[in-house]
């Protein structure tokens, strides 16, 4: 039995989702017999952790602070072991632009893209390159903030005249945005769980939105809005290929413990990696728990395994 601080909530826009992930993890940890300390992450985080003196932290934060390595850095300083990926991997995965550069370098297919900072437009005249970019990416173009989780701030530009407003929206979330070629096709997610034998790709989940033409934030977290199929019914070889790409992505980014890789399957059965999530949702509508279950790993076992890995990684004196 360990004393486990469950870090949740925080200031990110995904606060509510994180609270739900955290609550569910707490229940599982209690069922596993651990001593659970719920911590809503705020200005008193360090104080709380010092007072509570947990053996380990379960990081159930999503979005800014929790997933970008900030909180992990603090935990390192406090010498507290924690679940999931380390600081550099979080920083890489949370940055969609950096992730995509690394994917390209590693030969992992990802949709063509261009990235800009707000400064490039304001001070370097980057706007003049937009026509050339639009020509190379072809419409519709996906415009998204580099660091936002979920689907917040993502816009589709269907014509050149949509691009400036889409950029303005995306810049509301982050100082850097990316313009990405739209891949029309099926929305897949491969969750990865580390084990004794190394990282294991769980069965592929396909997200099929029921109403909207885009798998958005609301659909992602609401029961009944999106249909999830797991294991996804895919053409021969596609599941294996998706697993292979997910594991390669996981490896390239240096993720640890668990994670989720989002992919698109286009109409010619080509797969593209969109991004990786170092702390995917653990709510009752989240994809990682669903995929784990399809692999006969119940939620408690999933949480237990993530915790064991973290304890094993950082044996304490």
């Amino acid at each position: 039995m360990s004393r486990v601080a469950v870090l949740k909530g925080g200031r990110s826009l995904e606060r509510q989702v994180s609270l739900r992930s955290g609550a569910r993890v707490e229940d599982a940890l209690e069922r596993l017999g651990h001593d659970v300390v719920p911590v809503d992450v705020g200005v008193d985080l360090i104080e709380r952790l010092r007072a509570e003196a947990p053996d380990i932290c379960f990081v159930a934060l999503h979005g800014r602070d929790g997933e970008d390595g900030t909180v992990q850095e603090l935990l390192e300083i406090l010498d507290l072991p924690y679940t999931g990926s380390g600081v550099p991997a979080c920083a890489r995965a949370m940055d969609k632009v950096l992730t995509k550069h690394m994917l390209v370098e590693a030969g992992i297919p990802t949709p063509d893209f261009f990235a800009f900072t707000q400064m490039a437009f304001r001070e370097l005249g980057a706007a003049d390159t937009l026509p050339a970019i639009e020509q190379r990416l072809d419409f519709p173009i996906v415009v998204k903030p580099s660091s936002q989780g979920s689907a917040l701030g993502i816009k589709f530009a269907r014509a050149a005249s949509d691009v400036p407003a889409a950029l303005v929206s995306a810049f509301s979330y982050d100082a850097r945005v990316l313009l990405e070629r739209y891949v029309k096709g099926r929305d897949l997610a491969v969750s990865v769980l580390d084990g004794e034998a190394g990282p294991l790709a769980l069965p592929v989940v396909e997200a099929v939105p029921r109403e909207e033409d885009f798998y958005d934030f609301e659909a992602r977290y609401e029961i009944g809005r999106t249909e999830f199929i797991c294991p996804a019914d895919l053409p021969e070889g596609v599941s294996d290929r998706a697993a292979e790409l997910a594991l390669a992505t996981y490896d390239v980014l240096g993720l640890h413990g668990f994670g989720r890789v989002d992919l698109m399957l286009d109409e010619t059965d080509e797969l593209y990696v969109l991004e990786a999530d170092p702390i995917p949702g653990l709510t009752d509508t989240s994809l990682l728990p669903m995929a784990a279950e399809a692999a006969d790993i119940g939620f408690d076992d999933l949480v237990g395994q993530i915790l064991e890995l973290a304890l094993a990684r950082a044996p304490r004196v």
Partner: protein
Amino acid sequence: MRRAADEEDFVSSDPRPPSRSTSRDLERYAGLFASRTKVMKSSAMRDIMAVTARPEVISLAGGLPDTSSFPPETFAAVTARIAEQACAKALQYGPTEGLPETKDCIAEVMAAEGMRVDHDDLIVTTGGQQVIDLVTKTLIDPGDVIVAEGPTYPGAVPVFHAYQADVVQIDMDGEGMRVDQLEQRLDQLDREGRKPKFIYTVPSFQNPAGVTMSLPRRKRLVEVAAERELLVLEDNPYGLLRYEGEAPEPLYALDGGVYVMYLGTFSKILSPGIRLGWVAAPPPVLEKINLGKQEADLCTSTLSQLMVQAYFEIGDWRDYVRSLTAIYRSRRDAMLDALADYFPPQAEWTRPGGGLFIWATLPDFIDTDDLLVRALRDNVAFVPGSGAYLDGRGHSSMRLNFSGSDEERIREGVRRIGEAIKEQLELYGTLTGELEAVRSEPEDEAGTEEPGGRVVELRRREDRPRRAGGS
């Protein structure tokens, strides 16, 4: 600390529910939901709005009355009086339609706005919100049409969704709902063989637009309702919070309670915490509402009803309304001044003569859902306009509340939002090569514009020299 852990040990030795599995959970619950919940949207915006509740955020988002201005000694006197005189009664159930003594207070409030009402015409409800729910429940089958203003009260939207109403939104201008447009839409619906069940309107200091329906429009609306035999739900929480000018007659007074149902509330003139509202409606409708009320919650809190009665006996309730009016007038003025100083010339906003809200509209390339996220980085919040429409409009508008913050915070909040807007305007200008349009003053057209030409009564920033600074 050890003790706490020991207790945890003890607790965890209790039998626990068995481990639950994810997709079975999903299926188990999803299969149980009523089909109407599919249209009940708990939006991403709600998650974002949760962030606005942080203490460091200047929130111009809420619709909160300033309850700190209520004298605690009055509150103490009210409760002491109930304890002395009506303790057992206050703790007991009451009649579904409400207590007669509370209805006397309601009649007094309605008389103050020029309305006459009998006890038999009234049901006391759990806040005004319950009236919207009960009226919709009473009148709407799935697919039935409700006519509302565009924008409409964001709190009515989930109710209309829940009963699967088809909501038609009619534009507003400086004189409130465009009744000419309403008639056209009614004709059109008629041709489609569809008849709306009721027209929902907030005619005075509308939430969120802050505009007030003119008397000619009110008269015409009441005529239209009578001609076509349609009910109207007049939602009037703010009528008594008037900061200038004369009040036009309520629809209920104009129509005499034949086709107009009236929603009133003590939330804005006394306290939202007591959850006390009321509905006045034609007897056959009221009867059905009464049944709905009975099944919803049997009766409105007797304690709250007696608090109102005691409060009305102890002093003059109008004094408190007068003090609120003075406070809010000053805050409204502070917000209007701040908007003039800090919002860019491309922004337009309403100038409400009362109520709690100002509605501002930005160029259509700015999405206020996203702008809110940007503004939250600077610890300031507003309500994005999209929540006031059911048809995808409103994305470039915002609702600003001036009743819940003092003048200094209002000014600072508006300044921060203004900076965020300017940043986005400049960025857009850079992206489209129209930067000049941002840097120079556009012509001030709004001042000469005929009222009624715009969606809402709009006011551009006064022509004054641009301030230095701004990133």
